[in-house]
């Protein structure tokens, strides 16, 4: 039979020891200085989804993510910089959705980086247009670098023979981006593809496309 007094004294000893060890000098609280979003902030839901995507790419999360992006595209239909950010996010989302665990490891990082910059820019409403364009450019550069990496990885993995169809099929980013921009360009005339160039290279008598090069002019 257990001696209750003995039990209690040991419990008290444990509690006291733990209180001493884990006494916090500054009670950390949820009220500590944290950046907070304004009411009705349009990116709140998207932020939650981006954080969720970091852990696991589920059908539910990716569907919600793409749905929110599409809603935001409508919301920001008259803001060309924001639209371009959203197009990049949508392209990355579709690429990750299509490739899941086979996605390039940097794709999630770039998704986060693009969202973080977009988020920052939307919050900082006072930013000038050149500043916004500069932020956008830095993310577009990262995005383009990722595209090149994906394509070069494919080339080095499979060799050069018969690559054109595979690259174009696998590289959802490329495909989505092209589709998105073509679609948006024709519909709203906001982004206009000034040149769509396919670089063609001859290998063993066979033609293949390395990648379509899209030069986009933003009429800002």
């Amino acid at each position, binding site marked *: 039979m257990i001696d209750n007094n003995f039990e209690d004294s040991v419990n008290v*000893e444990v509690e006291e020891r*733990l209180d001493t060890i884990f006494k916090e000098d500054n009670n950390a609280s*949820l009220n500590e200085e944290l950046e*907070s*979003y304004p009411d009705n902030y349009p990116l709140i839901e998207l932020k939650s989804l981006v954080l*969720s995507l970091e852990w696991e790419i589920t059908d539910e999360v990716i569907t919600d993510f793409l749905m929110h992006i599409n809603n935001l595209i409508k919301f920001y239909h008259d803001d060309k910089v924001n639209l371009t950010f959203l197009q990049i996010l949508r392209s990355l989302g579709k690429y990750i959705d299509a490739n899941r665990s086979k996605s390039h*490891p940097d794709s999630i990082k770039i998704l986060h980086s693009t969202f973080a910059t977009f988020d920052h820019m939307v919050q900082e409403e006072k930013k000038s247009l050149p500043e916004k364009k500069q932020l956008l450019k830095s993310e577009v550069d990262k995005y383009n670098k990722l595209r090149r990496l994906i394509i070069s990885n494919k080339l080095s993995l499979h060799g050069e023979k018969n690559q054109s169809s595979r690259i174009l099929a696998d590289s959802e980013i490329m495909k989505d981006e092209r589709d998105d921009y073509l679609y948006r360009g024709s519909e709203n005339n906001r982004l206009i593809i000034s040149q769509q160039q396919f670089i063609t290279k001859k290998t063993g008598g066979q033609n293949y496309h390395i990648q379509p090069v899209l030069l986009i002019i933003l009429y800002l």
Partner: protein
Amino acid sequence: MAFVNLKKKEIQAKIVYYGPGRGGKTTNLEYIYQNFGDRIGGKMVAIKTQGDRTLFFDFFPFDIGRINGYQVKVQLYTVPGQIKYNATRRLVLNGVDGIVFVADALIGQRNSNIMSLKNLYTNLKHYRKNIFKVPLVFQYNKMDLLQKKVPLLPTEMLEKDLNQQLKRPSFAASALVGTNVAATLKKIISMTAASIKSSLN
């Protein structure tokens, strides 16, 4: 069952932080290590993959001193949360004395929390342990995001999803800020100590 050395009068208790990936298990240990490490000694070991994910587990042993004549040592472990690492999770659970289930309060993680708890139940069963009998504390993490107005699962919903039947102590917490990290640890150590003492008696 805790490792008890009657000759040396030493008890080693193993506490595992369990839960879905990216839920904040490692952040809990890091907070404890950074804020209390100088008081409790020990060194945290973390093995991570590219992209900062836990590959095997994090390990943080420390000493809480002599209690009732016994030198009590606590070993904190985390498990890799990613679904594909179940073998490692199961291995880490071997010989566990107490569990902190770190749930992710992000709305998109609701199913992951539930799946992870089911996974815990299954893995404990493998060692013939009953989830209803193992000392267990729930921590609903990432509550700091509420300040940023990021929509989170309400604690009532988390309680209903995870703790309705188990009815264990639970804490709304932020491992990043440190809110209720120490309280969670104190509670699980206390419950584990009581459980070990009870089994020794």
